């Protein structure tokens, strides 16, 4: 194996001659098995989705729930899914960058560890708890904010209103998703920010840059690919988030950019959670078909993230 030969040139400890030790062989097989398992699992899930979705794809619209064609049924859900996730990413990324910069470059050393730990802790809260927090605390608290938005920014389609009186809106769902994806986005960015080469930073400071200029000239360019990949990871999480959205969102199956009214588009994951328990027959196949679409959206997002990160790394 190539790697062994290379290693042999570097460190005599790692390779004891041409014959590999049995431990190496076992480890390499185990690692291979683990890798293959992932592929098999992924292919299995995709296959399951395809097979179960097929009856819904071939059925006539009259047989499907709500008597709509499959595309008409899934399109508003896909729209809602992307809208909620995009909203969360747009809000979370600047905040996450700020949090990451604060922890990596600005905060006093004493509190860095504790602060990092606290941010990571956000990721440990179960999504159902976020959902309950959303309807009991954040939703009611957001009602006056949404009223204000309707009054003063009502000319923007996002805040057209009428503002919801209960706070179960896309706006609140987006805010909760923002908090949920914040830890992953900021953790990825933080790791890379703190690895910015010292000499670059010191060079910038030596040339008379302020701290902000130093960050803008060295840390941010250095960490750009990590910001993108962190954002994509967060997007992936937001796309698939089920419980919190299911509990919070007042869904209406429509397509609208209005974020603050009581009528919101549903998301694919939330719709499955809501309708699966009382579904049977073709309705289940339809839900699984929507799951397949979500799978595809997530896959495309991840591939796009990989592509972006790979391109940055080459540069």
């Amino acid at each position, binding site marked *: 194996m190539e790697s062994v030969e290379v290693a042999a040139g570097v460190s005599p400890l790692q390779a004891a001659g041409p014959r590999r030790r049995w431990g190496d062989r076992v480890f390499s097989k185990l690692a291979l098995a683990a890798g293959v398992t992932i592929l098999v699992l992924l292919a299995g899930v995709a296959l399951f989705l395809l097979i179960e979705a097929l009856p819904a794809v071939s059925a006539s619209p009259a047989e499907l*729930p*709500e008597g709509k064609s499959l595309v008409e049924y899934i399109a508003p859900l896909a729209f809602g899914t992307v809208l909620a996730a995009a909203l969360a990413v747009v809000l979370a990324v600047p905040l996450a960058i700020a949090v990451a910069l604060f922890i990596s470059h600005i905060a006093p050393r004493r509190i860095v560890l504790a602060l990092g730990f606290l941010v990571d802790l956000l990721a440990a809260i179960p999504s159902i708890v976020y959902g309950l927090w959303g*309807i*009991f605390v954040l*939703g*009611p608290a957001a009602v006056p904010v949404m009223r204000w938005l309707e009054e003063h920014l009502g000319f923007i389609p996002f805040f057209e209103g*009428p503002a*919801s*009186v*209960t*706070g*179960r809106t896309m706006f609140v769902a987006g805010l909760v998703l923002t908090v949920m994806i914040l830890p992953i986005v900021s953790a990825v960015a933080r790791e890379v920010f703190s690895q910015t080469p010292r000499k670059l930073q010191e060079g910038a400071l030596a040339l008379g840059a302020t701290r902000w200029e130093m960050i803008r000239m060295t840390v941010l360019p250095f960490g750009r690919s990590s910001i993108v990949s962190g954002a994509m990871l967060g997007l992936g999480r937001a796309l698939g988030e089920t419980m919190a959205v*299911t*509990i919070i*969102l*007042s*869904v*209406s*199956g*429509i397509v609208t950019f209005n974020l603050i009214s*009581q*009528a919101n588009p*549903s998301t694919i994951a939330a719709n499955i*959670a*809501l*309708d*699966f*328990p*009382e*579904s*049977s*027959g073709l*309705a289940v196949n339809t839900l699984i078909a929507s799951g397949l679409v979500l799978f595809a959206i997530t896959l495309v997002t991840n591939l796009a993230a990989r592509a972006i990160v790979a391109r940055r790394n080459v540069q």
Partner: protein
Amino acid sequence: MSPSRWLTVIVALAVLAVGVAACGSSSSGSSSELSGQIAGAGSSAQQAAQEAWIANFENENSGVTISYDPVGSGGGREQFIAGGTAYGGSDTPLSEDEGELKGATERCKPGELVEIPAYISPIAIVYNLPEVKSLQLDPDTLAKIFNQEITTWDDKAIAADNPGVELPSTRIVPVNRSDESGTTENFTDYLSKVAPEVWTHEVSGDWPVKGGEAAEGTSGVVEAVNAGEGAIGYADASQAGELGVAKIKVGKEYVEPTAEAAAKILEESPEDKELSKGKDVFAFELDRKTESQGTYPIVLVSSMIACTKYGSAGEAEIVKAYLEYAISAEGQKAAAENAGSAPLSASLTKKIMPAIEAIEAG
């Protein structure tokens, strides 16, 4: 393993064997000698009631284990037809759709299909208007509110139903279930029967009107109505809590969703001839349009489904005893306490009892 461990295992196996033998031979005797296990699945509306029945029944019959999986009515019917469960719970009677009635009849051969109402839950119209202590609505107004045709509380139609009540000009926020549910299906069925001119939507477990506030589950609807002033929703009466509950016009009077008023609807309702073909099948066509005094027509009636014959005598006996308990005065009282349901009336219990008595070993 040490010798003493082996001994324990052998003793345990012996006890198990005796238990199994007893299980097979207990073809007769009083209910306290029942042992074995059966599984059921279905309506999530019945969950709390089933939990109460199972707990009490297992207390009385220590050898019996019963499980109930609240997968939903559709899933419950599917599993029952496939033979995966001994009994099922369903918010709607087995129908000819997707061949369910035929499939269930087929499943029970050589025995007969048993279908009986076991759980009646009044659906309350809850509203959040702090100043309005009592609200009366007639069916047309109710339908228009939920159809978003009446949009403010001081609308003339609402005022006409509530003489002398000062109604605020608050915007009406109708709240519906976002998940598919039997509650929605029964409520839309009621609206389409009593206000066919206003409510032209199809009867469905999925809320048909777009643009309203939607929340998950009964608790979600109650929470949403609680949170928004001017909100109105429909929820199991037992869950209404502190919220205002509207009285609905039936005939000439306005009726509250009490247990008695809800149970009365089954006495007023004829059996659905299409769906009640077998002699042990009781599918009621709820008479939502009833004008009979003291009857509350917005109810959810959930049924239990079983067979008259099972593979083993033990299984049949447990199903029989369990169903008997569920519809008995005692069982209905337990459900009322645990789930807030309306107990079946004595005359109805008498009417459906023969269906359970028909369950036998085969």
